[in-house]
């Protein structure tokens, strides 16, 4: 115990919504210059804690202190004025703003007559961007024109800019491909005495940055652990209340001689520069790429959301030209989209309805939907992804992100497609859900289905993929098979460094 009060202290904070208690008696101490992790599954109460600390919602009881003084923020702005700023997981940047506006809102720079000056605002924003090493972002660019990764960086940069005392980072790496940027900045922030609360599902990151972690489970603080003393398994057990399932490389002995389920021959267009690949039946093919290397376009082209200008796509040996996701599904390609909220869920429908929707005609009789049949079908589909059937009657909006993702995976599989196109299926989901999703993907492949899987987490690819392709510059740059799929090699390839030095040089020249 130090003599000076902790930077941020929360004592017995409780928050309940009606009959539901989201957070119960959670206490937390954050010392100046410390990076403190908060771990827990989805639904453990992490987001509620973040919202309370950042002033979005007020707790029902409990007390918070900032440098010893009572801290009871009634709005984000209030918290910001007190020196507490947050980078939200959901990203709080409105698409119709410019970068400068997004960074400085709601207090933009003023010029003559006290009016907002776009020029002064842009100049101030440029300074912030420079300070946080985001010089490749133009302050007058529109948010909508930025990639997800850039938006996440902006979100983080903005929080850092305002966080004089406490910085809260909620899943800051969900869309980031370049975590070192973040780590460097976090380190320099803490060096200046700011305390950082770091919420992440990625244990490896947490270990790199933090020494101490608070583990939440079901809204309660179950432990405060020193990370150097606890093994991954220990932490996992604390988080989910059971021991982790077997962890390791995919063991399925994959038969090489099976037929191709999906073949691409020199597919060009929509940014793609001639992509050739194939996925065999029963095979999981991983795609590794840094942000913006054409992986989005690859997946979108396959389901008809983008159009290829030349090249050939074969599904099960037959040439197809996907015109829309509907055609793709009919051809046997099923897609799990990138942005769950934007492209995935129908928030006002029940989970069951969400799962069966694309093929609702198959489970309806003469156009009518029978709720019992629908629920039964959805229950069957959700078994495969370990989604608790009691959620089927809930509106999907009421489910946690992890369960929503399970439902979407169930939907993708329920179409009866032989080939799954999974775009970052575990983004922002907790460890437990991840395990379930991995198991579902492997089981699908074991049943003879084929999977094209893009993931922003390399460990996921090393673990799941039978074969891993690296996209670089919107074409297939390298291919790794079996044991050769290994993180260090992938990382090198991601940045255009081939195992074949001649090839790297060509790329560098190009």
């Amino acid at each position, binding site marked *: 115990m130090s003599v000076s009060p902790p930077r941020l202290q929360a004592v017995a904070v409780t928050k309940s919504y009606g009959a539901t208690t989201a957070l119960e008696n959670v206490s937390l101490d954050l010392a100046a210059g410390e990076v403190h992790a908060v771990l827990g599954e989805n639904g453990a109460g992490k987001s509620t804690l973040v919202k309370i600390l950042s002033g*979005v919602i007020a707790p029902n009881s409990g007390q918070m202190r900032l440098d010893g003084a009572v801290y009871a923020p009634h*709005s*984000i*702005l209030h918290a*910001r004025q007190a020196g507490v700023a947050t980078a*939200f997981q*959901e*990203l*709080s*940047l*409105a*698409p*119709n*703003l410019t970068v400068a*506006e*997004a960074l400085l*809102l*709601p*207090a*933009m720079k003023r010029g003559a*007559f006290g*009016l*907002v*000056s*776009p*020029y002064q605002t*842009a*100049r101030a924003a*440029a300074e912030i961007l*420079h300070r946080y*090493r*985001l*010089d*490749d972002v*133009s*302050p*007058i660019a529109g948010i909508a024109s930025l990639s997800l990764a850039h938006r996440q960086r902006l979100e983080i940069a903005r929080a850092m800019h305002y966080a004089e005392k406490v910085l809260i980072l909620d899943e800051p790496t969900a869309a980031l491909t*370049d*975590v*070192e*940027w973040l780590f*460097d900045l976090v380190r320099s922030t803490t060096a200046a005495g700011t305390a950082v609360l770091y919420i992440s599902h990625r244990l490896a990151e947490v270990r790199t940055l933090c020494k101490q972690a608070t583990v939440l489970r079901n809204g309660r603080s179950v432990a405060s652990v020193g990370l150097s003393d606890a093994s991954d398994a220990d932490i996992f057990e604390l988080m989910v209340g059971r021991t982790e399932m077997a962890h390791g490389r995919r063991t399925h002995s994959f038969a090489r001689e099976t037929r191709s389920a999906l073949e691409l021959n020199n597919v060009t267009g929509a940014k793609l520069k001639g992509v050739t690949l194939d996925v065999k039946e029963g095979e999981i093919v991983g795609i590794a790429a*840094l*942000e913006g290397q054409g992986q989005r376009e690859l997946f979108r082209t396959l389901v008809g959301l983008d159009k290829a200008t030349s090249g050939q796509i074969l599904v099960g040996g037959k040439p197809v030209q996907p015109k829309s996701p509907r055609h793709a599904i009919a051809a046997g390609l099923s897609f799990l989209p990138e942005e769950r909220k934007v492209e995935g869920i129908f928030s006002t429908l029940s989970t069951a309805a969400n799962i069966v929707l694309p093929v609702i005609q198959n489970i309806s009789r003469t156009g009518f939907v029978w709720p019992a049949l629908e629920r039964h079908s959805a229950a069957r589909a959700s078994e495969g992804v370990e989604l608790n059937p009691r959620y089927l009657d809930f509106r999907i909006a009421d489910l946690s992100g992890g369960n929503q993702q399970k439902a979407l995976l169930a939907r993708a599989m329920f179409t009866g497609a032989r080939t799954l196109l999974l775009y970052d299926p575990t983004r922002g989901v907790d460890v437990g859900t991840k395990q379930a999703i991995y198991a579902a993907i492997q089981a699908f492949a074991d049943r003879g289905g084929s999977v094209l899987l893009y993931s922003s987490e390399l460990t996921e690819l090393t673990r799941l993929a039978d074969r891993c392709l690296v996209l670089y510059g919107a074409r297939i740059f390298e291919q790794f098979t079996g044991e050769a799929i290994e993180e260090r090699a992938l*990382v090198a390839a991601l*940045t255009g460094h081939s195992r074949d030095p001649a090839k790297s040089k060509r790329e560098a020249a190009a």
Partner: protein
Amino acid sequence: MSILATKAAATSHRLAPSMPARAKALLASGTGIIIVLYIILYGLYSIWDPTALTADTVLNLTNNAVPLAIAAAGQTLIVLSRGFDLSVAGVISLTNVIMAAYPLDGPLGAVESLAICLAIGGVVGLVNGFLVAVLRLQSIAATLATMIICQGLSLVILDAPGGTVADFISYDLTDVLFGVIPISGLFVAAVVVLWMICRRTAFGTGLYVVGADETAAHLSGINVKRVRILSFVIGGMLYGLAGFMLSAQTATGNPNAGASFLMLTFAAVALGGTSLSGGRGSVIASIIGAATLMLLQKVLFAGGVSSFYTGIFQGVVLVLAVVFGNVVTHFVERRGAT
């Protein structure tokens, strides 16, 4: 392994859009398109009607368009924040009958009347804002109710058209200044200037953000409730001003005066390219949209379109304007992308 960040040296960016970029943005926005459309229609008008370019015609056009333009400007604020405001019809009727039932003459009287109109609009807007922002009613439903109530109150105050608006208001405010400048046009100019100022305040930016993404706005530290309430209050005050200008033009009261403004304001807003799902658009475009609607009547008259089928042309022009806008935006954006 920080690839992207280290790669980029401290490149200096433009801090303001270049002139071509601005021009392109203007063209792709509704404002540019509606201006082009207005000019085209005016061109047709001047071909068919030689008096189209006289000061008298311009004065007539301005006086006709001003009430709708100001009302559409108010509606735009609410539409930008992703709402609908039906109370526009009620507020215009209410202010119109009050102007006719309690005329206050002279310049001072005009100022007092104006203040009363603005106050009525502001109060109705405040009620709307409270219902929508605080009590979370859907804007279309809440403002439907306030519209009906205001219509009722108008009928209570004046149960048949009549009354006389003060002479100063009805004559001097519809006249021209220095022989060329329509005075009513100055009111619109004032609204435009206020809007340009407003656009550069926290409220102005907040309006767009709230309309585009309420959640993001909240998490960015914007007081969403305040922005919403303020948009309804300012919108209401503009309806009050529209009622004031309408009274000046018609010189009399009519408890149903506002009814025809309901659909027309939305048509003007949409014609100006403002997205009815919020977050995109401009008050200025709506004002020109309103002027276009009024001009269209004159153009069709000058062109001698058979009266039964006037509606067909109005409908077609409405659709064409939007399609034209879509096509232009598409080309500009595609050009921008490559």
